[in-house]
């Protein structure tokens, strides 16, 4: 699953939110809290479900953030967030997810789409359609 949003703002403004592991509850609807300890992040969903994650990539130069959910629900998971500078005062944020069982990719991808859609309000910027 892959979802994206184009925003009229500097890419670093988006990266400051999506690339900071502890800021997840600010932009991801349904994440009540998260704890970051080294390369481990544990989120607590609104449903009361703890979801441990391993942070794989936090690269501010590439503006790439990658993580794996290590909950036993998942046989395999990889999510990647990229923030691209489009060079016209806009940027493109892309969230992609692979998961096994595959149905979980739909669920995470659907939640990611809602999270991306929340960014304009959070950042006070306009989406570009």
């Amino acid at each position, binding site marked *: 699953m892959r979802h994206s949003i184009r925003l009229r703002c500097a890419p670093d403004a988006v990266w400051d939110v999506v690339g900071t592991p502890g800021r997840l509850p600010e932009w991801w609807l*349904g994440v009540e809290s998260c704890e970051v300890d080294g390369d481990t992040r544990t989120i607590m969903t609104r449903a009361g479900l703890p979801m441990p994650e391993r942070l794989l990539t936090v690269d501010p130069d590439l503006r790439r953030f990658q993580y794996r959910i290590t909950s036993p629900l998942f046989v395999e998971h990889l999510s990647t967030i990229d923030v691209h500078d489009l060079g016209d005062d806009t940027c493109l944020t892309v969230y992609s997810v692979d998961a096994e069982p595959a149905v979980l990719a739909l*669920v995470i991808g659907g939640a990611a789409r809602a999270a991306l859609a929340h960014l304009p309000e959070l950042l006070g910027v306009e989406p570009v359609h």
Partner: protein
Amino acid sequence: MGRKILLVTTDQQRYDTLACNGGTLSRTPVVDGLAAGGLRFERAHPQSVVCMPSRSTILTGQHPSTHGVFMNGVPLPVDAPSVAEVLRDSGYRTALVGKAHFEPYFDPFLRFEENAMSINGTTPHGGSRRGFEHLETASHGAMGPLHYSQWLMANHPEALGMYCRAIDDSLQVSAAGGGDTGAPQVKVNPIDRGIYHTDWVADRTVAWLDSLDADEDWFCWMSFPDPHHPWDPPESEMGRIDWRDVPLPAGYPEDRTTREAIIDGKPRHWRAWYDGTLVSNYEAPADWIPATLTPDQVREVNARNAVEVELIDEALGRVLARVAERGWADDVDVVVTTDHGELQGDFGLLFKGPYHVDALMRIPLIWRPAPSTRAEGSTPTVVTRPVGLVDLAPTFCAIAGIHPPEWMQGKPLPVDDTDAESRGFDKVLTEWDSELFGISVHLRTMMRDRWVVTAYRPGTSHDGTEGELYDLVDDPLQQVNRWDDVSVRPLRDDLVADLRESQPEVRPERLFLEAPV
């Protein structure tokens, strides 16, 4: 004081499961009585044969192409039009008790209010949601965050594990067998009948009705999760029907060669699913091969299904008794229907999917108008002309004395065939679109005159030239696909042209699939 409206829906119930529709397994005296006091529709079709799109059609009065919920897992936008909102704006008190499913169930983040509100009570944030001021939800068992599950967990935690585990460890619809025959999605359920979800839905409906003043007008959608799989009714009730005595359905040729020849006359995804090489949709177990279905399994599934139908009938009887005690009996319109049908052994298949035949498309629809509006000595009416669930929302408006809004695409239900003919009830449409894990299937279907025609659009299994054409008079079981029969080619071309010209408006912005169901 105006007419009150009780909309009773079940989930995945075939037309022929009601005694008044010719069913012989279930005893359904309550619904039969409603039919005897009103209208029974012989050709009611859903506009989608899966839950979320079909329920969205009931609520919005729009076809799936227009409201945008093209398959399960696509949430209906919160600002979608709603007949409940129209009625509420006109002073009606509004409630939905039971299965809603306008938003996906797979929701670990509780992003969807329909799921999240079970922890916050029964009054939606802001006073109403989709026009309902009271939402009290249930689904097919004890899973998930819905009100019934929360209630069961708090009051009867011992019962949580009694229901069939409908989803397996790989988060697919479980293919595990149970009961006496090992049929999929069957389980012996020791739960006490009084706490089974059917009776809970009736109990909570009564509780909401009891909260109203006698002179208030109300619209209540009482939505039973049964007889949708899993088939796990309270075992205490299974003595009603011995599955060994259940006849095989007419649509199930017991001879395998005959059965497979029938399927081979249909577009290729039929046989591919039957053989277990293609599962195009999430609603059927991915690991179950229909070709392994045995006659005894069909009998047991149908027996359990029939018991669930009887329990619904009895629960409805309790609610109607309470309505009468409140003094409303003469002023309540009761509409009984479902969201779509169930294959139940037809063609050797169970569950549902992109198979537009009567098993899934011909559904029960009974409308008992408020007795105060019926002339003395009125006789039961049977409407044979085609109608759809898309016609319910404008019907509710008409009952309430409201002109149906422009965005509703149906028409108030006809009161007899003459009325139907004069108001153009000559066809009904059903559509299917699914795109899941690289498999896409797209069907457009129309029932007109005595024919059902389905034109396929290109997908991963079809190139867009395929189709199905059935003569409902000569071939009521839809076993002979006449799509390629040159003797009816002019008729086919006419039907297809009408089908294409009749397609509803397409929502400009495509909605997203956000969960499997």
